[in-house]
C-alpha cells in the first residue's frame, strides 16, 4: 500500500513536470516600438545673469545634434535622428527646477543636457532622477555627483580639477622657464564653485608645502576690487590663483590695471572670465597674459573638433567658449550611449535604465566625443563622473585666447611672467 502511494506520488510529479514542459512559456516581451525621432532636451539659463553661458551651451548642443543627424543619426537604431528642444532655466534654482519639470512633461526627452550652474543642477536633478530621465550636466561643483543621483552624468572635469590644474600649470611653467616663485595668493568669489576651485589649488600647494600667503573671498557681484587688489599688493605674492565668475573677472582685471599692481602671474581657475571673447573685449590690454583653465580644448587637433570649431566660428565669429565646447562633447557622449544602447539593448534602447547602463559601460577613446574631449578617454564611475577628467589652460596672448598647457596640447608657449609684471 505504502509502495503504491509512493508510485502514485512519483507519477504525479512526472506528469506535472511533463505538463509543465508542454505548457507554452510566456513569450519574451515584444521589442518596444521606437519613436520617429529621439527627443533631447536642453535646459540652460537663457535669460538672467547667467544667460551668457546658457546661450553658448545651447549653440554647442545644437551644433552637435546637427553633426550627429548629418552623419546618419543613431545607426544602431536604424538611423533615428535627434530632435533638440530647448527650455529656459531662468536665473535661479527654483526656475531651473520648474523648467526641467516643464521640459519633461511637455516633451518627454530621453535625456537633458545643460543647466551650467551647479545649484541649478542640484535642483533639477531631483526632478530628472524622479522621472528617470538622463541628465548630462555641464556644471563644475564636485558635490553635484555626490548626492546619490542615479541618472546624472558629468563628462566634464569638476572645479577641484580646475584649481589643481591652475596650480600645476604655474608650478611646471615656472620650473620650465627657470623663474623662481615662492608664494601664492588664492582669491575666489564666494560661491561653491569658487571655493571648490580654490580647494583644488590649495590641496596641491599643501602637498608641495608651497607657501600660501593670502586667501581672500569676495561676493561675485562685486563692483570695485581696488581695495582687494591693494591688499594683494601689500601681501605681494608671486602668483595669484583667481577663480572669478564672469563680471568680477572684468572688475579685477580693471583693478589690476588701474592700480598698476601685477604679480609675476595671474592664473585663473574655473573657466569663467578673463579669456572669453567678451572679457577680452571689455578688458583689452588688461587681460593680456592672464590664464584660465578650460573644460574644453578648442585647439584639439582632431577632425571632429576642427569641424565643430569651424562651424562655431562661422556662427559666432570666435572660437567655441567653455560652455559651447562642453555641451558639444556632452551631446556626443549621449550619442555614443544611444549607439551602445541600440546595439546592446535592441528591444528597448531608450529605456532610461538601459540608457544608464549604456553610459556606465562606455569607455571612449575614439569617436566624436573622445575627439572633442580634452583628455584621451571618457569612462564614467558609479557616481556619474568621468574617471579621466581633462582640463587645459588658455592664456590671452596678443588679444587672443591660446591653449598653452598641457604642453602636449598647447598651440602656443606660455608667456611667463605676466607681461605687465615689473
Amino acid at each position, binding site marked *: 500500500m505504502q509502495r503504491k502511494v509512493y508510485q502514485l506520488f512519483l507519477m504525479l510529479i512526472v506528469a506535472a513536470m511533463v505538463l509543465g514542459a508542454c505548457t507554452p512559456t510566456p513569450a519574451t516581451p515584444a521589442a518596444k516600438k521606437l519613436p520617429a525621432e529621439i527627443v533631447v532636451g536642453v535646459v540652460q539659463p537663457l535669460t538672467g545673469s547667467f544667460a551668457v553661458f546658457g546661450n553658448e551651451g545651447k549653440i554647442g548642443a545644437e551644433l552637435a545634434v546637427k553633426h550627429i543627424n548629418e552623419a546618419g543619426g543613431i545607426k544602431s537604431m536604424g538611423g533615428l535622428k535627434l530632435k533638440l528642444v530647448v527650455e529656459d532655466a531662468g536665473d535661479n534654482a527654483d526656475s531651473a527646477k520648474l523648467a526641467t519639470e516643464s521640459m519633461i512633461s511637455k516633451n518627454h526627452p530621453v535625456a537633458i543636457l545643460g543647466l551650467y550652474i551647479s545649484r541649478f543642477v542640484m535642483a533639477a536633478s531631483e526632478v530628472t532622477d524622479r522621472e528617470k530621465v538622463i541628465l548630462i550636466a555641464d556644471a563644475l561643483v564636485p558635490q553635484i555627483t555626490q548626492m546619490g543621483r542615479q541618472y546624472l552624468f558629468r563628462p566634464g572635469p569638476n572645479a577641484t580639477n580646475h584649481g589643481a590644474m591652475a596650480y600645476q600649470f604655474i608650478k611646471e611653467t615656472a620650473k620650465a622657464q627657470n623663474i623662481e616663485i615662492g608664494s601664492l595668493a588664492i582669491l575666489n568669489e564666494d560661491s561653491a564653485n569658487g571655493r571648490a576651485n580654490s580647494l583644488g589649488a590649495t590641496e596641491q600647494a599643501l602637498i608641495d608645502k608651497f607657501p600660501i600667503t593670502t586667501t581672500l573671498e569676495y*561676493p561675485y557681484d562685486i563692483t*570695485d576690487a581696488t581695495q*582687494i587688489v*591693494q*591688499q594683494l599688493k*601689500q601681501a605681494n605674492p608671486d602668483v595669484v590663483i583667481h577663480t572669478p565668475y564672469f563680471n568680477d573677472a*572684468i572688475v579685477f582685471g580693471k583693478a589690476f590695471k588701474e592700480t598698476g599692481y601685477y604679480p609675476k602671474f595671474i592664473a585663473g581657475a574655473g573657466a569663467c572670465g578673463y579669456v572669453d571673447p567678451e572679457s577680452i573685449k571689455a578688458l583689452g590690454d588688461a587681460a593680456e597674459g592672464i590664464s584660465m583653465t578650460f573644460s574644453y580644448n578648442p585647439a584639439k587637433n582632431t577632425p571632429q573638433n576642427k569641424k565643430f570649431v569651424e562651424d562655431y566660428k562661422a556662427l559666432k565669429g570666435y572660437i567655441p567658449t567653455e560652455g559651447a565646447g562642453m555641451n558639444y562633447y556632452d551631446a556626443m557622449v549621449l550619442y555614443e550611449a544611444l549607439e551602445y544602447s541600440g546595439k546592446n539593448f535592441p528591444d528597448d534602447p531608450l529605456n532610461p535604465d538601459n540608457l544608464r547602463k549604456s553610459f556606465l559601460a562606455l569607455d571612449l577613446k575614439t569617436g566624436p566625443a573622445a575627439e572633442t574631449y580634452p583628455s584621451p578617454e571618457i569612462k564614467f564611475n558609479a557616481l556619474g563622473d568621468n574617471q579621466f577628467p581633462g582640463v587645459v589652460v588658455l592664456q590671452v596672448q596678443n588679444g587672443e585666447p591660446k591653449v598653452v598647457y598641457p604642453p602636449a596640447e598647447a598651440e602656443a608657449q606660455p608667456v611667463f611672467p605676466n607681461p605687465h609684471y615689473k
Partner: protein
Amino acid sequence: MIETATQGVISGVMMGAIYALIALGLSIVFGVMNVTNFAHGEFVMLSMYLSYVVGTALAWDAVVTPVITVPLLFFFGIITYHLLLHRTLRQMYVVQLAVTVGLQILMRSAALIVWNAQPRALQYSFIQGNFEIGGFTILTSRLVAAVVSLLFIGGIAYFLNKTWAGKAMRAASDDFDAASLMGVNYKRTYALTFGIGSALTAVAGGLLMSFQQTDPVGGIRFGLLSWCVLALAGLGSIPGLVVAGIIVGVAEALTVSFFDPRSRLLAVYAIFILVLWLRPRGLFGRR
C-alpha cells in the same frame, strides 16, 4: 594698520562722492514729488550702457559720454514722468510703488534683451592710472569722478537755491498746494525734477564707466546704495547727502580692508538699519 586705514579712507571718500551724486537724483525726486522711485538704480544701469554705446560708437572716453547721455536721460526722464508717474501722483502710495517696481523690471528685461546679459565695459579711459601722495595710492579715475561729482552736486545746489525753476521745485517740495496757488506749474516742475534726477544718473554713469563695467542686473546695487545714502542723509540737505555718501563709501572700504570683502554690503545695510531705527529723519533731514 594706520596706513591701511588711511588708504581705505582715501578710497572711501572718493567713492562716497560718486554715491552722493547717484543718491542726489533719487533725493530730488523723492523730496519734490514724494515719489519713491525703485527704478533709480536701473536708470544708472541704463546710463552706463548708453555710455558704453556712445563710447564704442564714437570712440569717446567714458567721461566725455555724458555730453550725449545727459540730454538723452533728461528726455527719457521727462517722457517717463508724463507716461507713467504723472498718473500715479494722486493715487495711493502702493500704486506708485507698483509702477516704479514695474518700471525697474521692464528696464532690466529690456537691457537683457538688447545687451544679452553680457557685462560691457570700455577698455580705456584717459583718467585711468594712479599716482602716490605720501605713500598712499590715489586712483586717478576715482579722484576725477569724485571732483566731477562734487562739482555737479554744487551746481544742483546752486540751481535749487538761486534759480526760479529751482525755487519752484523747493516750493513744491515744501507745500505742493501753496506752490500751485503761487503760480508754480506743478506738472512742468515735476517733469523737470524727474528729468534732472534722471540726467544726474547719466553723469554718474559716465564716470562709473571709466573704471567699472555694467550688466543688466547691476542696477539694483546702485538703487539700494542710493536708498542707504538717502536714509542716512535725510531729505532736504545736499551737504548732508555728500557726508552720507562719504560715510557709506568709507564704511565699505574699511570693511573690505579690515574685515571681509563679503561683508561690504553688511556694513552698508547695518548703517541703513541703524539710522532708520535711531533717527528715521536721517542725520541731516529737514523733515
